[in-house]
């Protein structure tokens, strides 16, 4: 499948690896926000502060 410009195999590999790195970073960020949310909620349940 052509994507409109001549891309060497090396360039395609670099682009693929970069896409994977971005996906992993975004996935890690989502997991991190989830964990932080759980930890913060747990803290408020144990010590509601009122």
């Amino acid at each position, binding site marked *: 499948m052509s994507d409109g410009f001549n891309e*060497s195999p090396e360039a395609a590999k*670099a682009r693929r690896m970069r896409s994977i*790195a971005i996906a992993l970073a975004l996935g890690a960020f989502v997991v991190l926000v989830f964990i932080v949310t759980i*930890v*913060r909620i747990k803290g408020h349940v144990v010590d509601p502060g009122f």
Partner: protein
Amino acid sequence: MADTAAQTEVATRAAVPARWQDFVALLKPRVMSLVVFTGLTGLVCARAPMNPVLAGVAILCIAVGAGASGALNMWYDADIDARMRRTRGRPVAAGRVQGADALGLGVTLSILSVGLMVLAVNLLAAALLAFTIVFYAVVYTMWLKRSTPQNIVIGGLAGALPPVIGWAAATGTTPLNAWLLCAIIFLWTPPHFWALSLYTAEDYAKVGVPMMPVVRGAASTRRQILFYSLIFVPAAIAPAFTGLGGRLYLAVSALGGAAFIGLAARLAAGKAGEAAEARGEGLYAVKAGAKDARNLFAFSILYLFALFAALLAERLAGLPALRP
């Protein structure tokens, strides 16, 4: 024909995506590691109970914020980086990453790191982190660096704030001891950076960055290095008397401080930076005349690391401070 070849080369380069490692390099991992270390020391020295997950997130936010500053710095300084030996291999300067991509990465990571700090830790730590990023990217990089020989003196505040951010993350406050850690790094920066600039002054002069040796000359720079060293070392010893450091810290700071002043005095008495000397690649490759500057530069890194490592070791080992 030549134009066509050049256009083809530019088009090819633009079509080739950078490697992911180039984007990691944009974050200045070596600077980031020092920032993480000092931030962690501030967090641990605060002696406040903190959920380990949230403590880890706080350190991660400090690291990512520092990385974002580095990316913004490389985006803005690509023109001068490309013409200096020390920096010409950087991703944007070398043409491996487009400036717009570095800018996008820097802005995105700034927003994410500050935002996550607000959500996970507290507003004070997030505000300090935001201030640090803006101070480094805008005040230092865009304004001070190219306009005054005091650039790294004032700009050094950005590198000095991580322990305060770490302390604020743990306690929500920034007491005097937190600012003492900040003062140590702030006062360390001029002798550290000017020692380096004594043997890289040619590059700075070439690109018009008014570093101290370029504007005031080598002799004045060597005197100012000694002056700042004489202020810095007492500040480095001070935590032993403010309830922060113990016996180990006192020994490390006093012995290392004596060596630091000795190296600075030797540099002041020597001729480092006087003659334009050809030098090899790398920060440590200098000719004999500049070895005093190289030695102080290298020792300054070791000394700062030792100071914070001593504080960290004392806290983690449960050793008492000299004063409660």
